[in-house]
């Protein structure tokens, strides 16, 4: 058995699990946070993305034991109380989801790309960055629009702060 000690959405979690437990199983089944999805289970669709120490990684291709010692943020942990994260709000306003299954991964990927590449992203960059996220409703246009709107909004916020 592996001792897994990490924080999930700011909360310290300490648990004993099977060594082979995947991080996504740990999050969904042990912690009951079912917002993180298992789509393909073969590392291609990105529905299982979580932020590990600030970077979007595939929780279906990572063991819980590997993540021990890290800080994990899931889709449940990005809003501030009742106030949606700017990326969540942009998805809502731009109809960036149809069935919603891929959405948690899309939102996490969007947060990661905006933080890494800076605000005000152009469309080709967003599309290239979404290489690892699949939307089986094929609703990509509005997803790209939502990410662009969120990145522009974050640019405006940065300007206002200066």
């Amino acid at each position, binding site marked *: 058995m*592996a001792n897994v000690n990490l924080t999930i959405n700011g909360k310290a979690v300490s648990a004993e699990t*099977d*060594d*082979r437990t*995947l991080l996504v199983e740990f999050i969904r089944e042990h912690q009951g946070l079912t917002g993180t999805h298992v789509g393909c*289970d*073969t*590392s291609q669709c*990105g529905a299982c*993305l979580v932020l590990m120490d600030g*970077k*979007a*990684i*595939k929780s279906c*291709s*990572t*063991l819980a*034991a*590997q993540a*021990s*010692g890290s800080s994990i943020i899931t889709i449940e942990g990005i809003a501030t109380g009742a106030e949606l994260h700017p990326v969540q709000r942009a998805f809502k306003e731009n109809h960036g989801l149809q069935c919603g299954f891929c959405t948690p991964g899309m939102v996490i*990927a969007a947060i*990661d*790309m905006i933080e890494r590449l800076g605000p005000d992203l152009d469309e080709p960059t967003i599309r290239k*960055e979404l*290489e*690892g*996220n699949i939307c089986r409703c094929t609703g990509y246009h509005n997803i790209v629009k939502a990410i662009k709107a969120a990145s522009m909004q974050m640019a405006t916020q940065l300007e206002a702060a200066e």
Partner: protein
Amino acid sequence: MYETSYNRVSSVTEAATALDAADDPKILAGGQTLIPTMKQRLAAPSELVDIRQVDELHGISMQADGAIRIGATTTHAEVAANADVRAQLPGLASLAGHIGDPHVRYMGTIGGSLANNDPAADYPAAALALGATITTNKGSYSAEEFFTGMFETALQENEIVTAVTFPVAQRTAYAKFPNPASRYAMAGVFVAQTPSGPRVAVTGAGQEGVFRMPAMEAALAENWAADSLGSIQPDAQDMLADIHGSAEYRANLVNVMAKRAVAAA
């Protein structure tokens, strides 16, 4: 996934001891190939020795002679973003920035990619074209010695890749045609203008994994231009053939990718 036991180590010595003590161990670094393979039950190591957080295996440094040394557990994202790699070996930075997707690149490591030697992996092409040296806890190998066939390397049992050193090159570029579904290279060509002349290495297309193209190297030595490659291509007999493309298609693709790489370098 079959049952396994997980062991995180904090030094190369500790890793070597753990590997020697285990029945049927595997080294775990980023896990972006190993974990999916274990989930499919195509691998079932009794023990995983996790070296991802071993400090001495991590990081990128410029050597006195201009060569760039990359620690085995350095991720693709780190190689792609590194200022020295981008300035000195832009082809290598670009290659690293196009492996898999952004999320795989945060976890996947250069040492893991080289040790696995997937016939469609990108890094082996850079290592062979640049004449890299692969250092392990037991010695070192030239890239020519290291890659011995599909998924085969010169590594002995439980030998740990610790770093890869890429010597200086005047010009580098990598062009790949990714499989539209898997994004693995159907043909990936790395070209380098090195102090000892042009070198060309091909991944994704060959039945035996990565290989060099001496005919292309000779043509580029005469004149470094895409046109000088004419219709030079590998023998289709040695190419992979599957539902994604015939051997003849891949042989032609090697020529096209090589021209694109030379034009970009």
